[in-house]
């Protein structure tokens, strides 16, 4: 007697505790195996690119905060880089160091969320997540000290940074680096060698480097797939050519490597921050640009940074007015999602949420 089985289509809906935001995937299962994947997104679309055409160049900074809301500083940095290329100016050195410093702090905060939620989806009931959030809380207090807000920071402006750091920021930063080093080592001890975690993530959903490159994947996912590509090294911007750091590369291309690469990047970020603190010199932090900027008509600029999730870039076209004529956002999470079929098809139900968590998408970026 043969038993006939049918593939079953399940909707992992927009409201779900384990998808990163309002993300919907329609998955077809044959038993436990995933046969087909169809992502549906757009639930968080707010029309950022159109809104940017209605606002002047400095007001758009507040819009960019809200793209990838877990890493606002880096979004600001990408946009300000693009506007500076449009205007043809360079920020003063102290501003470059401050930007690098805050971008690396923000990278740590973003990776703590990525790692914490990755382990939460594995079922660890939130203990590593809470430890990650405790450390992230300290980083957000530092941001509050710098610019008055914790998450939607609007710290950077075209031409530099909006204001210098208050004088008690530097002792607080040093205190944070000491505390965080201990807490992070503790998290590593809890997680990196944990057998249950390794057994569940090793060898699962590997993305070979050819497929990663063909799908324009970028960021930690690309580096975990064995490709040595980091925009901070390839096209150094701000102060990244003055600091030394390593780029972690994965060799097994699987979920565990994507998880491991983020841990190592946090270590490298701490290294960069320490070098920035040592190298920063007093000076102006903002160029004397008018509040309402008017670049020349017909200019266009593409400013890209290595965001915590990949290559974030802004393509700005100016028509001589106070607003950009076109602001196109190349968001890393959206482009990383093109590899979702390769990631999920052929693997089991239990690995699906974990694999989705390992590429760390953020719906604020995907939908803009």
């Amino acid at each position, binding site marked *: 007697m043969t038993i006939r089985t049918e593939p079953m289509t399940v909707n992992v809906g927009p409201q779900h505790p384990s998808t990163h935001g309002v993300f919907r995937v329609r998955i077809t299962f044959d038993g436990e195996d995933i046969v087909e994947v169809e992502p549906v997104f757009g639930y968080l679309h707010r029309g950022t690119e159109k809104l940017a055409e209605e*606002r002047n160049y*400095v*007001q758009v900074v*507040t*819009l960019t905060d809200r793209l990838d809301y877990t890493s606002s500083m880096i979004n600001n940095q990408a946009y300000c880089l693009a506007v500076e290329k449009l205007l043809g100016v360079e920020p003063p050195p102290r501003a470059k160091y401050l930007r690098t410093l805050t971008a690396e702090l923000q990278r740590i905060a973003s990776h703590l969320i990525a790692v914490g939620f990755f382990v939460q989806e594995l079922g660890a009931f939130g*203990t590593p997540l809470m*430890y990650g959030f*405790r450390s992230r*809380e300290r980083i957000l*207090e*530092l941001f*509050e*000290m*710098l*610019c*008055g*807000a914790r998450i*939607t920071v*609007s710290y950077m402006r075209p031409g530099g940074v*909006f*204001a*210098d750091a*208050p*004088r*008690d*920021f530097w*002792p*607080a930063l040093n*205190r944070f680096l000491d505390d965080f080093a201990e807490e992070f080592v*503790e998290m590593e*001890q*809890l*997680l990196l*060698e*944990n*057998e*249950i975690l390794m057994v569940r993530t090793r060898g699962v959903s590997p993305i070979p480097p050819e497929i990663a490159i063909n799908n324009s994947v970028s960021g930690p996912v690309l580096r975990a797939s064995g490709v040595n590509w980091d925009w901070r090294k390839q096209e150094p911007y701000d102060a990244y050519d003055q600091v030394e750091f390593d780029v972690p590369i994965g060799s097994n291309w699987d979920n565990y490597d994507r998880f491991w690469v983020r841990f190592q990047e946090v270590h490298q970020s701490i290294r960069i921050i320490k070098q920035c603190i040592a190298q920063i010199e007093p000076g102006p932090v903002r160029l*004397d640009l*008018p*509040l309402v900027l008017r670049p020349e008509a017909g200019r266009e600029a593409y400013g890209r940074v290595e965001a915590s999730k990949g290559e974030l870039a802004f393509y700005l076209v100016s028509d001589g007015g106070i607003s950009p004529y076109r602001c196109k956002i190349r968001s890393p999470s959206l482009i990383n999602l093109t590899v979702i079929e390769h990631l999920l098809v052929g693997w089991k139900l239990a690995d699906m949420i974990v694999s989705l968590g390992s590429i760390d998408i953020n719906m604020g970026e995907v939908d803009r």
Partner: protein
Amino acid sequence: MYGLAMIKGLMVTLKNLTRKPFTIQYPEERAKQHPRFRGEEFVWYEERCTGCASCAKYCPLGIIKIETSPSGTMIPEGGKYRLEVFDIELQRCMFCGLCVEACPYDALFMGSGFEQGQYSRKNMVITIDQLRNAEKHPSTWYRPQLEGYEGEADSFRRRPTISQGDSRFSYDPRGGPPLGWREVGRESWRWHQHEKAGMRFEQDNEGTDTRGEGPDPSVRKDDEAA
């Protein structure tokens, strides 16, 4: 060996059991707020405001509504308008502080409170009377004249001692006294070429205030030939 790292994980969790919890019991305790915190209120000094509506123009969301009428005060010197309506819609405000950044006369400051929840949507709009009568605890965001330091700065967990430039007094937004329009000082905006009479904040070395008393903005003068 199989299981050794799991025991290490158990030790980490156990160590955290003995640590003091990181939670802050709001509302009995509050997290320490840095002076630059962009709160949910606004501090407006009417004595300095000329009704230029730069804040309204610069707001990304367009939530500031200003209606002015000529007030007839100090017209040859390029005086100030009389403000009829100055509404800020708190329900849509994202507290980005660009309005504060745009104000050329340091008349608008971010506030430092954050418990501004209201029960009805009508109450979410701050009107000009609320702005006039509110207790003024401005945040130091984009107002570097309020942030001066003397001596060694403490760690950010305790309140820093902030003194105004020449260390006349120390200022803390949450705990300190409300500031009037003379105490908040002014960072001269480099784009602003013409100093308006009554708006200049000059000091000689002893720290006495040499600014003259401006006309009372709430009194509407009859128009006279200037």
